[in-house]
């Protein structure tokens, strides 16, 4: 029989109408599920009272799987079939995965998302994540005594569309109805902002197992607005383990270990890291299967020294996010710490020094994201309290745009635009009589399409033949509250339309998002030069095209000398158009334009007199 929970005044649900909603923090290292019960967000625990579920899936030889804590031991005994940190592979191609050499898995080189070969066959990261989500769903349904209406699943702010879509697919595969994907830092702010009801600008510093996110949030009268997000999709607590692991290999003079030994060393490294949070020194002792022994002592100072670069690496995105938001460190009223790795004393100290204040740590950094997600799920499922009129605004992490002639990226929605958002822009045809247009949607900050991430392509057909530049194609970009994109193109005169929902092909480029952002800054001036050259090239092509047509139609208007001059200039321009000298190209364009000016005037006169023939002046 169902047990009752206390409702808000006047909010009692009719029997069997309880809308059970949970928030899920699908983490790299650990996952959690939380719900709002009796008006309070709580994490749901397993039979042993543990809220955390390690994000580990073990595929057993002969069928069946083990999950979470049950799969921890097989990390050592069966590393190849025990998948940890699967989140790092979500929506990623094999080239995108860092530290691949230290992983004991058999990767399959497939187009799009990477797959892992296990004893139970080939598994995609989506399927593996779905196993984790299914386990959390079972726990939630057992705890709440009913089927779930919907869930909010959190994702790192820097997940691109491919990674978000992969997360959504995994939830669907686990039989969950996703109410919304929520950025992790935003979820943390929901948990802190509502519990403490304090207004101002906050930074959310989220150093999880595998990802680092920094968000600048503004809380005003219960309204959350994300001013800027930044981060590194390949930086987390695991990297600190990895440094310790490398340090141990180095100091114990061990040859490259077997997959099993590597796993055990990494586990030992993690235990040492956790111990150093509370102790000044920790033993690193282990006997490997190879017979070699590791017997080391790590002091806090050693550990701080070997991970100094990693700590510094977290501060770069902090600075970029503040700059994007147009703020300085002292404008920040509080810093929220999220993720187990923020328990490390030297991380807390670096953050405190940078912001000039102690960071907030009063909620459990492992749980705060799940709690915020639960509050959001509760509100979205319609169990919202009357006085909770808060609204959640999120931002686009990277600009969205279209490829235009010459391989240039035309940004339609700029980075950090708040969600949901719709923007329209008009484009036109490049050639006379052009009846179709191909749209290539890209994401990124760089000027050239080749440097951005390709998201999707589609075509608009049935444009009526018109002169180049006469057609008006209205392209609308729309991004919903989940950060998922749809693009439509409409030709104004005929109403022909084409659209696409971006269900992006997974892992198309090797650059990860943070890297893309960084490179856009580093290459700003190269990009500008490249853009200038491409623009000149496009202009030259358009001019050549126009000249060719004019010469084909009205060449008898030119005498031989004029024709020779024009032909020579055309040849010169043709030659320069493929080169890299923007100035020479610009001069050649100007020369050809000048030489054809007279010709253009004569053509104009001829077509005017043609048009006027047979009409008298009164008719005009």
């Amino acid at each position, binding site marked *: 029989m*169902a047990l009752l929970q*206390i409702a*808000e005044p006047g909010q*009692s649900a009719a*029997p069997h109408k309880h809308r059970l909603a949970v928030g899920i923090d699908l983490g790299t290292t650990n996952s959690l599920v939380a719900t709002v019960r009796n008006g*309070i967000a709580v994490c749901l625990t*397993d039979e042993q009272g543990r809220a955390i579920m390690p994000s580990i899936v073990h595929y057993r030889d002969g069928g069946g799987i083990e999950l979470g804590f049950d799969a921890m031991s097989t990390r050592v005994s069966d590393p190849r079939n025990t998948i940890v940190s699967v989140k790092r592979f979500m929506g990623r191609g094999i080239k995108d995965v860092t530290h691949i050499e230290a992983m004991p898995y058999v990767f399959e080189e497939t187009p799009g998302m990477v797959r892992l070969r296990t004893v139970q066959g080939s598994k995609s990261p989506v399927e593996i994540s779905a196993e984790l989500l299914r386990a959390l769903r079972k726990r939630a349904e*057992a705890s709440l005594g009913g089927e779930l209406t919907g869930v909010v699943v959190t994702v790192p702010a820097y997940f691109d569309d491919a990674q978000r879509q992969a997360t959504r697919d995994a939830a669907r595969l686990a039989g969950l109805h996703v109410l919304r994907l929520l950025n992790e830092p935003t979820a943390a702010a929901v948990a802190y902002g509502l519990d403490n009801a304090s207004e101002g600008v906050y930074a959310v510093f989220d150093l999880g197992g595998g990802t680092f996110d920094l968000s600048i949030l503004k809380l005003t009268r219960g309204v959350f607005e994300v001013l800027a997000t930044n981060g590194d999709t390949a930086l987390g607590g695991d990297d600190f383990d990895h440094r310790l692991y490398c340090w141990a290999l180095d100091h114990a003079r061990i040859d490259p270990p077997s997959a099993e030994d590597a796993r055990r060393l990494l586990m030992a490294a993690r235990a040492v890291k956790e111990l150093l949070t509370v102790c000044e020194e920790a033993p690193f002792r282990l006997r490997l299967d190879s017979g070699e022994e590791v017997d080391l002592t790590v002091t806090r100072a050693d550990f701080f020294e070997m991970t100094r670069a990693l700590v510094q690496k977290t501060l770069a995105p902090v600075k970029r996010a503040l700059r994007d938001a147009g703020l300085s460190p002292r404008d920040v009223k509080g810093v929220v710490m999220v993720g187990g790795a923020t328990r490390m004393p030297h991380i807390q100290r670096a953050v405190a020094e940078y912001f000039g204040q102690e960071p907030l740590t009063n909620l459990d950094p492992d749980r705060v994201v799940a709690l915020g997600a639960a509050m959001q799920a509760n509100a979205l499922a319609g169990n919202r309290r009357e006085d909770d009129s808060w609204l959640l605004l999120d931002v686009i992490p990277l600009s969205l745009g279209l490829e235009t002639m010459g391989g240039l990226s035309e940004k339609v929605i700029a980075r950090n635009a708040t969600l949901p958002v719709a923007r329209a822009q008009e484009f036109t045809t490049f050639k006379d009589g052009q009846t179709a247009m191909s749209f290539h949607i890209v994401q990124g900050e760089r000027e050239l399409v080749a440097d951005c991430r390709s998201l999707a392509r589609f075509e608009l057909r049935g444009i009526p033949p018109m002169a180049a530049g006469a057609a008006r194609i209205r392209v609308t970009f729309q991004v919903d509250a989940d950060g998922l994109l749809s693009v439509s193109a409409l030709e104004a005169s005929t109403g022909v339309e084409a659209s696409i929902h971006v269900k992006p092909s997974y892992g198309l480029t090797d650059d990860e998002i943070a890297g893309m952002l960084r490179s856009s800054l580093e290459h700003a001036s190269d990009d500008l030069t490249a853009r200038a050259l491409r623009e000149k090239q496009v202009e030259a092509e358009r001019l050549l095209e126009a000249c060719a047509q004019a010469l084909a139609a009205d060449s008898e208007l030119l005498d031989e000398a004029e024709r020779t001059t024009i032909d020579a200039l055309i040849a010169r321009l043709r030659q320069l158009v493929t080169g890299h000298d923007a100035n020479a190209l610009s001069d050649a364009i100007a020369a050809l334009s000048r030489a054809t000016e007279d010709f253009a005037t004569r053509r104009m006169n001829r077509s005017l007199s043609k048009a006027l023939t047979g009409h008298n002046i009164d008719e005009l």
Partner: protein
Amino acid sequence: MSVTLTERAAQHIAGFIDKRGKGVGIRLGIKTSGCSGMAYKLEFVDQTLDDDLVFDSHGVKVVIDPKSLVYLDGTELDYVREGLNEGFKFNNPNARNQCGCGESFNV
């Protein structure tokens, strides 16, 4: 006529009100709906209404409207744990046919 809380229920309610940060007590009530005719209502109370009846049970204010009291007289509200699930349970001597889910009943 009265309704009571078990000590465990009272402790949990006091705890929830404390964490919620506001509220003067707990409202018990019934509404006419559900598969067996009537359903229980369990809500936080921010403000009592004029004709509300208020009982004190283990230091927690129990608020009930007079119409509901007719159906709830003698009821004891308990807090129980069943497997992973936990929550409140009405032990109502007036209820005859309880529906399988325990959310509704008739007298």
